């Protein structure tokens, strides 16, 4: 099969892989920075409805708006929420540049909620500051971004999935992949590459057993984590998993961010509050876990005490944005917020810096450790960065990539690498009766649940690691009957890489930190003496995964992490 594959060659100045929140903004900003530059977005779905915000978003969670908060306050809040393990210079960018993003989005027709006096109607969800800005009409966000990408004349190639970043002389020089509809082999030469492929949302298996019943858009399978790793880039704090408190079975957010400011409460089965802050953090998740294991669960988002108009307002936002099908989910079970709490559960694990802190290492310029390779959005290691952070780092990546490519020429890809990658990609098509990707993926993700779901136990994770390493051989058994199935097969490769990284990083950091995200039974305490550092990993020249401590840069905003401990338990 692989010998008969048609090959397409493309060239662009700046290649952006993934056309979601960060990727569309990176393209727009690169074109604004240099209208002469050729900018190409490569997207495995269609940018009109792709990425984490395919169906819009009901608000932004990290809006630093003059008069309401400052970048310094924001950086301080995230530093404490992430137990001190931050590159403050990067976090500060989201605080400093987020307001520009909001103003530019407004100029494109995105509507943010304002009070009758015309001031931004910010809500407090974080522990101290007000950073949540509702967008009740956010359902068209992605179509608005798509329009701006076209208006800025960035090129878009939909339905092509990248599988590897091309590297030569230590520099990112393009990417390879394939067309998920016609199966063509695609080679793209570029002067700079920006990875914006979102979270690894398909790592653990949802309790429902349904492979695609994930919190994240299931197309976000850790593509960028894996591609950055194989390109030689460092990844950071992978052991800081993403684990969310979600609507049981549905796996969407119960959405205390929307409903909390209107009076909804996260409570136990007896109706009592057990956390004093609904902002998603590992510390909050640990309280949820304790409550569920205390006999006082299940945990629910309670709105039954609210008046009808307030509940109707909450519904009007939730039924239109982000995960609108939740309306029919509740209806199908005969549930109504006026009479029923929303039963919540602890999600399976994932990797995501937008919500927690696991990502590809980037500095405050969105540069990875590989020259010419940038990362932005959920996959880039800027903790708690959410959507505004994705826009800000998309912008930084786009602008800095334009700077970087000045006077730079294309490099020819290594023909041996291209042949080897082509063989790897198309192997499942050569054995169409091989094991279906669904079964191979199910078993892999079930093993992730068995061995990596916190509380973490070293002996279990060692077994998990052996399983994930051995799974390299299992991947060779997969068969695909068409390019669509081939896409899913290659995603399973990404998921396996992420599982191995998650196991190794969790075993390496011998302490507990970030609440439930890295709660180790063997090392139950936080240990700032030895582990006040990033845990980074990368692939060596000989193809081995190595882990090491990366020191935390001196803070630019003073925070005493020994004294200011993030604690949301109600006692």
């Amino acid at each position, binding site marked *: 099969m692989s010998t008969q594959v048609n090959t397409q060659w493309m060239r662009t100045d700046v290649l952006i892989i993934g056309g979601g929140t960060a990727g569309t903004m990176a393209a727009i900003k690169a074109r604004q920075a240099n209208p002469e530059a050729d900018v190409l977005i490569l997207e495995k779905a*269609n940018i009109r409805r792709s990425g984490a915000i395919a*169906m819009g978003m009901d608000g932004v969670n990290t809006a630093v708006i003059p008069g309401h908060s400052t970048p310094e306050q924001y950086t301080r809040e995230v530093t404490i929420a992430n137990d001190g393990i931050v590159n403050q210079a990067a976090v500060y960018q989201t605080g400093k540049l987020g307001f520009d993003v909001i103003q530019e989005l407004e100029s494109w027709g995105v509507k943010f909620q304002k009070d009758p006096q015309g001031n931004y109607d910010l809500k407090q969800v974080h522990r101290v500051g007000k950073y949540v800005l509702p967008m009740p009409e956010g359902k068209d966000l992605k179509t608005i971004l798509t329009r701006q990408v076209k208006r800025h004349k960035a090129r878009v190639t939909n*339905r092509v999935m990248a599988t590897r970043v091309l590297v030569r002389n230590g520099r990112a020089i393009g990417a390879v992949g394939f067309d*998920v509809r016609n199966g063509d082999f695609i080679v793209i030469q570029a002067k700079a590459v920006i990875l914006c492929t979102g979270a690894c949302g398909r790592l653990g298996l949802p309790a429902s057993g349904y492979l695609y019943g994930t919190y994240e*858009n*299931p197309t976000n399978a850790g593509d960028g984590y894996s591609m950055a790793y194989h390109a030689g880039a460092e990844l950071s704090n992978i052991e800081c998993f993403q684990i969310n408190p979600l609507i049981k079975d549905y796996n969407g957010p119960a959405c205390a961010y929307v409903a909390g400011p209107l009076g909804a409460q996260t409570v136990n089965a007896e109706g009592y509050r057990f956390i004093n802050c609904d902002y998603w953090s590992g510390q909050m998740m640990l309280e949820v876990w304790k409550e569920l294991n205390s006999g006082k669960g299940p945990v629910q988002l309670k709105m039954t005490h609210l008046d009808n108009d307030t509940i109707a307002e909450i519904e009007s936002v939730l039924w239109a944005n982000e995960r609108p*099908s939740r309306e029919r989910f509740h209806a199908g079970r005969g549930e109504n917020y006026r009479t029923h709490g929303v039963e919540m559960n602890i999600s399976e694990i994932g990797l995501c810096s937008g919500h927690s802190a696991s990502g590809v290492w980037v500095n405050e310029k969105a540069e990875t450790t590989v020259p010419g390779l940038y990362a932005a959005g959920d996959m880039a290691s800027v903790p708690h960065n959410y959507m505004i952070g994705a826009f800000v780092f998309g912008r930084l990546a786009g602008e800095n990539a334009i700077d970087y490519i000045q006077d730079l020429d294309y490099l020819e890809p290594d023909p041996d690498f291209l042949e080897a990658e082509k063989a790897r990609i198309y192997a499942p098509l050569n054995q169409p009766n091989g*094991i279906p990707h669904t079964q191979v993926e199910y078993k892999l993700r079930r093993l992730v649940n068995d061995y990596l779901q916190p509380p973490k136990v070293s002996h279990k994770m060692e077994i998990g690691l052996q399983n994930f390493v051995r799974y390299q051989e299992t991947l060779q058994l997969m068969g695909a009957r068409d390019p669509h199935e081939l*896409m899913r097969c290659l995603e399973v490769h990404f998921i396996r890489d992420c599982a191995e990284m998650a196991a190794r990083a969790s075993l390496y950091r011998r302490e507990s930190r970030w609440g439930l995200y890295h709660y180790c039974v063997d090392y139950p305490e936080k240990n700032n003496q030895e582990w006040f550092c990033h845990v980074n990993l990368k692939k060596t020249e000989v193809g081995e995964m190595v882990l090491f401590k990366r020191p935390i840069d001196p803070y630019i905003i003073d925070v005493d992490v020994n004294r200011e401990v993030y604690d949301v338990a109600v006692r």
Partner: protein
Amino acid sequence: MALINQRVDVPVIVDESKCLEKCTACIEVCPLDVLAKNPDTGKAYMKYDECWFCLPCEKECPTGAITVQIPFLLR
């Protein structure tokens, strides 16, 4: 290896009487690319059981031919 075809309840339901043969709106917007045209009838159908129940197909269908159900395992 022998492969079997197993019946599953699929979430995306297409009303063929409303589905336009020349329209591919739902197919183009699906993030997971699970929809396709039946070559014999020209009507859209769910070809791969990988739905995220995210609804772009339903919202962007010009004739209201599509209904998305919550997948049975979650319902």
